[in-house]
């Protein structure tokens, strides 16, 4: 179960990657490109957003 998702800005200043945290486990750092359809993490995030959740803005 996804706990949180947060954008990460690349060197061009774009929100091109996100970090996803599952089950409050912050010991694992999972990063995935946005719009990476078919990637299980990105597909999970899309479902999570469809369920009413929001991706956090990048720092």
């Amino acid at each position, binding site marked *: 179960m996804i706990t949180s998702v947060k954008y990460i800005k690349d*060197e061009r200043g774009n929100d091109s990657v996100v970090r996803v945290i599952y089950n409050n486990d912050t010991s694992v*750092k999972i990063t995935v490109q946005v719009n990476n359809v078919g990637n299980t993490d990105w597909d999970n995030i899309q479902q999570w957003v469809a369920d009413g959740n929001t991706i956090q803005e990048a720092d």
Partner: protein
Amino acid sequence: MGYVGNKPALNYTSFAAQHFTTSATTTYTLDHAVTNENDIRLVINNVVQQPGSGKAYIASGTTLTLSAATSGTDTMYCVFLGKAVQTVVPAQGSVGSDELSADAITGQSALGAEPADTDEFIISDSGVLKRVDYSYIKPTSQVYRDAQPIMINGNYEVWQRGTSFTTSVYTADRWKQDLSGATATVSRQTFTIGQSDVPNNPKYHLRQTVSTANNNCGIFYRHEDVTTLTGNITIAFYAKGTNPNGGNLNIITKQSFGSGGSTAVETSTQNITLTGSWQQFVFNFSLASISGKTVGAGSYLQMLIKQPDGDSSTNAWTLDLANFQVEEGTYTSATLPPFQSETFGNNLARCLRYLQTPIYANDHQGTSEEYATFGLGVYTASGYFRCVRPLPVEMRVNPSLVSNSGSNYFFIGSGANDYVDDLTIHPDSNYKTAFVYNSDEASGTAGQAGNLMGDNTNAYAWLDAEL
């Protein structure tokens, strides 16, 4: 010319003879009916008798009448000149290939089932006709080394992530534990060399030890691309263990049609009742037609073994799995194709499509090799190091980077040693080439090259494209 009755098979006919037990009489009974006495040649005491009325004998039907009575010491026999008797058994060694009809087996009764072990086949053994029992030629005892089974890592030899897991994660490659609120451990178990409980000498099997159970806790495998297994399939495996409180586990399949695809379809569940001894289970499933379905990226066919949905008991149970296979079509345990055991190398190569672990000291090899290299890179700016890794196997999709962070977990070998705590996937990554970067600790000279590697036995950086 036409025949009345059976056409004689000329190579296998002979004249019938009848030997009589003589006595003081003129009347005897023939074995075969005749038209008249000219149909037989009668011999008494080795003297041929003259046929005909007023001669030595007459015959009609099965009645033989002599002109004078014989005595008990006479020897008498007759040959039926008009009676050709077809023999049943050809002479030994007299039938050649030319005499056999090309359709000799057509019309014979079909067996309609797998032959018994003692059923026999005819073979030519270096040109000599011999018989062989089916037990010697049936395929079930064969091992197809290096064959490519439908399933990947069905023999549980590849464990890139490690050998023991307590959370809802992938465990053995391609096999994911789903806790569903339970407390459980999946671990790699080693077979005793030479054991015969599970055939083909597998090295390992998977064990799921559930200490505090819950409904739907189990383990699943996802076969990539829902369109590549359709219709009737057979799932077979060896298993042993202890059952949940309800007395059995469930096995169920699910067709997931991917991102943006049609709604997933599940088959009905079937029961698995474990015992303490290894036994083979064979299940047949009829999958829903994919005709008219919309299939998106990331589709799969899932095979799940779990505690039944209606069994919420918390009693402990254990599941051991070995030699897991899936076949297209419907099979029984008697007709199931033999388990195809890949070499470790081929198995690993197929697993790399879903997971690659360039930096991981605690994998299944147990070597604690901390200085594994991710790849070569360059400082694109003094505080930004980007590293590239050409992937040895094309991954299913652009992978996620699954890593951890810790003080100086990663090392950049450059003009000066540079240590960073963590890594992030780069947006230019794709399924053929992975890029990672660090932009908050890297410190080098822009334009300078370096190699990125692990620097701690706890550090890891995986590329994950699992389903």
